[in-house]
């Protein structure tokens, strides 16, 4: 008896539909070259469909597809060999040292309204994310966009659970520091003008 492949495609697309936006956002944040995002998504989805026969219905389709997409993007990033050239590999201690140069009293509250923060981050956020390592960026995005549990992230990236916690803590600390420094610049510029 021949398998109903048209039905397979319908079932696959039905599972894909609710996570399309998250997949696209995740890919655009994770990929090093923005123009590679569309190709990466399409390749990952077709790869997932090719392997859909092996997909177990009791597993998380969302985690499975994020895993395939992550591997696709990592392969693209490695292919371009740009991460090693541009990544600063800043450690939290180094960022703290930079941050401590300013007296605490001058620190503005960098947690503005979500809308203003989103506007400010729209372009700068991508630059900040590139400060992170590949795994830090993936863990942060899988948690923030994919809304995955730590264990799912560990399985998706094939790393230990402790590494997930370490990568996530460092990524969050770096991002908070970078966003805080950027938010301080307008205040400093305003003070200089005065």
């Amino acid at each position, binding site marked *: 008896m021949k398998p109903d492949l048209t039905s397979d495609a319908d079932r696959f697309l039905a599972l894909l539909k609710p996570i399309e936006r998250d997949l696209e956002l995740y890919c655009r944040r994770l990929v090093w070259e923005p123009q590679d995002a569309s190709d990466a998504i399409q390749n990952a989805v077709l790869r997932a469909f090719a392997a859909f026969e092996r997909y177990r219905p009791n597993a998380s389709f969302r985690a499975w597809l994020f895993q395939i997409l992550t591997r696709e993007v990592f392969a693209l990033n490695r292919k371009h060999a740009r991460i090693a050239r541009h990544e600063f590999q800043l450690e939290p201690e180094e960022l703290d040292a930079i941050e401590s140069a300013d007296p605490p009293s001058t620190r503005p509250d960098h947690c503005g309204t*979500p809308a203003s923060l989103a506007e400010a981050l729209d372009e700068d956020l991508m630059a900040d994310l590139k400060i992170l390592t590949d795994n830090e960026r993936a863990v942060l995005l899988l948690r923030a966009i994919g809304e995955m549990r730590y264990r799912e992230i560990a399985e998706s990236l094939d790393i230990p659970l402790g590494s997930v*916690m370490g990568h996530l803590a460092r990524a969050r600390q770096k991002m908070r520091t970078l966003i805080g420094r950027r938010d301080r610049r307008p205040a400093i510029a305003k003070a200089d003008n005065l």
Partner: protein
Amino acid sequence: MKCDQIQSLAGPYLDSELDVRTTGEIQDHLAACPDCARAFATQQQAEARLAAALQQGHATPALWERIEQSVRQAARARAAAVTAPSPTDLAVQASTASRDRTRQPGQSWWRTWLWPSPRFYAGVAAVWICIFALNLLTGNLPEVVHRSAPQQSQQSPETARAFAEQRQELAELLGLTDAPAQPPKPTAPPNQTHIWNTDDRVPDSVLNRSATSASHT
């Protein structure tokens, strides 16, 4: 738990990834420590806003329409591959196509098979090989027969004499001749003793040889 230990667990605590017992300990500590409670609140607010910023954006409909078409196209390709003929079927189709290609319109099937085809030329070659082989065999056959057959043309002396007697008796009965017919000269096979009859005429050489031998004795 001390404050630094509590601070190191802030992320997993805010992500609800800790077990019940550790979560309870942290909650007890936060209730008793205003500094840690304030730090936790600040971190929670910052991470929520970071997550909100990272989640900002929308899907591109054109991209997903293209992807959906690609998926359906891949499904059709797989379905076509599943229903594709087997290698045996392909070989039969190729053979039929080859025959049909060489067959002319209006040409009968046996003419297509026999002329002009490799089978035809192979058959002709086989016939020629058989004829050549038969020629080789039949060329040696008379010599073999000649050597192996019995010498029927040579009659024994008794037979010749019997024929001569019968011929003479027949001639006498018919009155055809006055003189008795000469029997054919028997040709004795080599190394065979000649038996003399009383009617035989003894050759002179034999008589001379007998006389010579008698004088010697």
